[in-house]
């Protein structure tokens, strides 16, 4: 009788723990799919302002977290600009932003770069690489960390 009771208690704990983990995994998947990063818009929104010796470049990225539980914390967004005149090994410019986004929040990130006029004039093809590094966390606990790369050439 005692063995049966202990076994039933363990069985209930296993079931409850399993349900808890499944619920957390499901919500986490939903939250991951609910982060909307406007990468394509960002690559399309790059504005070049040509000056006498330099060119100012501005790119804007919109973020929206439509999830319900997990936060994306310590998110690093790095935007690299490559020119075919220089080669794809070293970027001609890069800018970085770090932020945390909670469920229901929206953010807009603006990246500013300065490129030399000589490189701008000799470039025929630009490549924008947007790298996002982040952690999905709940109450400061790191559930999943990820790195996302988006590349657009124009």
């Amino acid at each position, binding site marked *: 009788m005692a*063995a049966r009771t202990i076994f039933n208690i*363990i069985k209930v704990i296993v079931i409850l723990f399993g349900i808890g983990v499944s619920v957390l995994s499901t919500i986490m998947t939903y939250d991951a799919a609910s982060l909307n990063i406007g990468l394509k818009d960002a690559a399309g929104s790059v504005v070049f302002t040509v000056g006498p010796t330099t060119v100012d470049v501005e790119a804007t990225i919109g973020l929206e977290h439509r999830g319900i539980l997990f936060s994306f914390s310590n998110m690093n967004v790095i935007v690299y600009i490559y020119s075919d005149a220089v080669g794809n090994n070293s970027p001609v410019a890069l800018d970085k932003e770090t932020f945390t986004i909670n469920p229901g929040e929206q953010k807009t990130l603006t990246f500013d770069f300065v490129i030399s006029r000589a490189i701008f004039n000799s470039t025929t093809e630009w490549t924008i690489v947007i790298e996002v590094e982040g952690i999905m966390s709940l109450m400061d606990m*790191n559930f999943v*960390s990820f*790195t*996302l790369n988006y590349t*657009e050439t124009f």
Partner: protein
Amino acid sequence: MILGVKSGIIKFIYIFITWGYLPTLGNDVARHYGIYLLLFDKEMIMAIGFVLAVLAGLEKTFEDTKPGISGVSGILRNVVVLWYFFKFLEMITLIRLPALNINISVSYNLIKDLVVASIFLTIFKHVIQIAFSKQLVKKPET
């Protein structure tokens, strides 16, 4: 005993559908959209699903009458599940979406530990089931 066999067959069908048949549908959909490639082919997924279903069926059939056999089946099933889970993680660590020019690499930290803990807790439950198998046999009601 007949009731146990019936429950075992139901469990077998349920596990085979959820672990053997449904993942192959997901595999087909994923391949159709070129989202990612599974580590296993369709036949392998079905075979693993079948093994899991047989073990789950045995586990359920002998749950009340022969808890020792049920416990051993349960442990074997969870060992396969653990191995399958790590293979699955390996598969979804690097996700490539070439149509969208996006690559995602994921590191599963606490969520992986929680799932592994859940599997080990289930194995522990089956160890208890084997250890107390004589006491856990259900006496037929008179």
